């Protein structure tokens, strides 16, 4: 095994130490990631765009800062992959859609600007379901991403590219975005850590919106500590985003370090009755239950809580999200940027005819489905019955959370009801696909933070299971404390990290990009 392949297996926190001590350089590390990408991404297809030149230049600049004794941050020099839904100046940003093919933004998303300011070389842009619409990354216009655990299976979605890149050791860190579970569910099915911060905790400026009131960008990593380190880089108030919270972030890294001691005395953990049991794969439920017992063993007080409105969450979500999406996607009209299709059958087409032809050719089926759904839900005469009712459900869900957080400091559930399903299995059954987000959606509707931490492999299929921890708004530190504790407890049992399993390599044939 080469020095490079050792490097790519290490956590970001480890790598930061190695960079600080001079054990390695950012150029060496970045090159190792690029080599790994070249080696396996032909099979995984986590990336839509790799910026080797840019990443190496940023790495060299980072090494110069370190040499001068002026690192920009603890993670200065640690490379990262960014979901293709965040605007990157000078780098293509497609959102997994044909309609944005070739668009190069003239500006950086705030998250991206903060990564650059902190010195993290950007390896490239990761694959996703078109405009973050999906739970499998199969709805990418550029072809699906494959789960490193089993290439015939989905890596989750919409951020399957980011989770697969991290799981396949192509990048130590990635950025995802989570509207209904698009960070956490891919984390669950790829055995990685994914955090959806409190709504407003991370700037949405430059995040191409799926549903503005639900979207949050967050860390995709292999360890809870790495997620905390990255969260502290990207989080905090941004005057360019009116919905950004003007308050300091809690001490996340400190909470993760505290959690690693695996002492949860005095922490009340609420198991959500509605998020488990029927409809959940047996092995998923089993690993979840075992994890809860580990928390009890670490001193946590476990209570069962009920959130009766959660049963309506999926229905409310599939009205609010497409309503906002239908409006957000209206701007893709061939007038200013992106794809322009001239209708073949019309001479001198009008602007409206060009818009129609472009949107017909440029949007995939799932995007069209949601545009139609949202347009319908907002239509005069239907608004109250659909959008209005959904907003009421949203309020009820927030109240359920409030009540539950009166009884418990954190809530827990399986992240997704199943392990990774085979590619193609649910493509013709949108409702079955939507059900994959049943446990993650309530957090988006209420704006509360959540994390998915690997909980082991389901006995029946040997695929990763995710354990979700939810905390009250602004209390993201609790995710890190409990998540890090569970991680430490499980790794003690296994004797190694879930993703450290060398057998993962047998599952990824070398397919050069």
């Amino acid at each position, binding site marked *: 095994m080469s020095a490079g392949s050792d490097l790519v297996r290490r956590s970001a926190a480890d790598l930061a130490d190695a960079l600080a001590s001079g054990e390695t350089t950012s150029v060496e590390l970045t090159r190792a990631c690029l080599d790994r990408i070249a080696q396996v991404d032909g099979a995984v297809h986590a990336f839509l765009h790799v910026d080797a030149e840019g990443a190496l230049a940023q790495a060299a600049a980072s090494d110069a800062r370190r040499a001068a004794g002026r690192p920009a941050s603890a993670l200065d020099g640690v490379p990262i992959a960014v979901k293709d839904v*965040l*605007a990157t100046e000078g780098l293509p*940003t497609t*959102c997994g859609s044909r309609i*944005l093919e070739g*668009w190069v*933004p*003239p*500006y950086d*998303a705030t998250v991206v600007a903060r990564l650059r300011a902190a010195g993290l070389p950007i390896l490239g842009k990761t694959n996703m379901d078109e405009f973050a619409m999906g739970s499998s990354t199969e709805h990418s216009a550029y072809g699906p991403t494959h789960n490193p655990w089993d290439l015939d299976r989905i890596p989750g979605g919409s951020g399957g590219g980011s989770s697969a890149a991290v799981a396949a050791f192509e990048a130590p860190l990635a950025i995802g975005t989570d509207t209904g579970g698009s960070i956490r569910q891919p984390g669950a099915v790829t055995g990685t850590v994914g955090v959806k911060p409190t709504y407003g905790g991370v700037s*949405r*400026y*430059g*995040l*191409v*919106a799926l*549903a*503005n*009131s639900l979207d949050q960008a967050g860390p995709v990593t292999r360890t809870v500590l790495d997620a905390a380190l990255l969260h502290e880089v990207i989080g905090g108030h941004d*005057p*360019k*985003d*009116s*919905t950004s919270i003007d308050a300091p972030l809690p001490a996340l890294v400190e909470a993760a370090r505290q959690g690693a001691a695996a002492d949860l005395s005095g922490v009340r953990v609420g198991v959500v009755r509605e998020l488990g049991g029927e409809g959940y794969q047996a092995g998923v439920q089993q690993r979840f239950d075992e994890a809860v017992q580990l928390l009890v063993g670490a001193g946590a007080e476990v209570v069962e809580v009920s959130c009766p409105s959660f049963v309506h969450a999926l229905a409310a979500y599939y009205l609010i999200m497409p*309503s*906002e999406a*239908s*409006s957000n996607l*209206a*701007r*893709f*009209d061939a*007038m*200013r*940027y992106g794809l322009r299709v001239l209708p073949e059958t019309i001479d001198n087409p*009008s*602007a*409206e005819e060009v*818009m129609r032809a472009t949107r017909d050719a440029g949007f995939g089926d799932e995007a069209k489905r949601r545009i139609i759904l949202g*347009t319908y839900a*907002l*239509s*005069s005469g239907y*608004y109250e019955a659909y*959008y209005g009712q959904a907003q009421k459900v949203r309020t009820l869900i927030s109240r359920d959370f409030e009540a539950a957080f009166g009884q418990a400091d954190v809530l827990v559930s399986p992240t997704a009801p199943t392990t990774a399903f085979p590619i193609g299995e649910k493509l013709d059954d949108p409702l079955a696909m939507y059900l994959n987000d049943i446990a993650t959606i309530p957090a988006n509707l209420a704006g509360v933070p959540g994390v998915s931490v690997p909980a082991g492999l389901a006995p029946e299929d040997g695929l990763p299971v995710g354990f979700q921890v939810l905390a009250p708004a602004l209390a993201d530190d609790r995710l890190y404390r409990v998540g890090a504790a569970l991680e430490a407890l499980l790794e003690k049992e296994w004797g190694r990290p879930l993703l450290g399993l060398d057998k993962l390599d047998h599952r990824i044939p070398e397919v050069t990009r």
Partner: protein
Amino acid sequence: MTAVSDSGGLVDFDEALERFDPAMGLEVHVELNTVTKMFCGCRTEFGAEPNTQTCPTCLGLPGSLPVVNGKAVESAIRIGLALNCEIAEWCRFARKNYFYPDMPKNFQTSQYDEPIAFDGWTEVEINDGEGGVERFRIEIERAHMEEDTGKSLHVGGATGRIHGADYSLVDYNRAGIPLIEIVTKPITGTREKAPAVARAYVAALRDILLGLGVSDVRMEQGSLRCDVNLSLALAGSDKLGTRTETKNVNSLRSVERAARYEISRQAAILDAGESVLQETRHWHEDTGITTSGREKSDAEDYRYFPEPDLVPVAPSRPWVEELRGTLPEPPRERRARLQAVWGFADLEMRDVVAAGAIPVIEATVAAGTTPQAARKWWLSDLARRANEQGVELADLPISPEQVARVQTLVDEGALNDKLARQVIDGVVAGEGDPDAVVKARGLAIVSDEGALSEAVDRAIAANPDVADKIRDGKAAAAGALIGAVMKDMRGQADAGRVRELILEKLA
């Protein structure tokens, strides 16, 4: 014009009013004069190079987000207060969804059922035709905040409209400029005065906005735009008829004419037993008619929903009260005060009000002119010019300061009235400031006593009989000689001095 229903004939205005009562609703869009746009930091200068005042947000680039301009909210609240509105304790922006190439996001960020200001009123005055004024109270439904769209320029084709154009250019400098839309409740009971009331309302609104200093309110530049909604009901019936919405009626005179035209046109349709089509109509300044504009009739469902990228606007009560303290005097009190200060008779003041001349006279007086002199200039010469050109006094290409300078030159004896009018001509024609015009046109009064004396001698010699009369003590006859001298001097003489010279020579 285009469609049959558009040329279906007109009923004489007075005759129409015998059978129908008009109801109007006026929607006025005001561009605020904030330094930056409604939701981004781009500048708002009028007439800049196309697409130079843009950024990811006002271009609607993917991922960009809006941030509310606090100054625009302040202006909106002040407008609301000046219109006696309630100010919302909590309100939101909403998305108005429709597709149009000059709208970067294909939705306009506006306000829907939660406007920042609502339930207000203002009062307008019109001449009652019998030497008095009649007052009307106009109820304000709402005033809300929104962003302007870009501007399309349709190139080629005959009409300058989108249909038939070879291609179109879009300038997004205007996209995102803060707008306040002010909507009245239905204005009824104005009968034959409806067009005059419509005009008076827009004029009153313009004066209020000018007084607040929140907008340039230049109708010809589009910073104040009016839509006239009008319907006819059978006389005596309280059931409103079907309305039309005439868009972008962009001068006070046009507001009046458009209302008048729609009354005559709709009356003809109703007389023919047909029904008025609820539609958008275009006003044509040149021909003085409205035509159907059905382009958007299939897109009337705007699918409004609360803008999720913005947090609610919740102006605190102390702030609202603080802003109330910054309001200028209400127009009626202001008129009464100015009339007293200026010493105008009721009739004089009425004409000043009717001509919309208060702001220009005030500015001219502020520049050092006596109120009477200021009134004389603005209500005679300049009013005639404005009328000829179909523009407002304030829109004439001469400033109150320039008028004041002309009057100063007259007071100093450098110009007489006739020359002063020529200077005004020059300023209006764009020849520069009064002093520059005087110099360029050589209009100063001849103060060379020798030349003047010779001209007087010539006049006496040419009119011996008049001279005799004056010698006989009939000083009033001097007028004829003064006229001859002035003619001789091509008007560039001080008539008073000429008179003195004549009387001296013929003593």
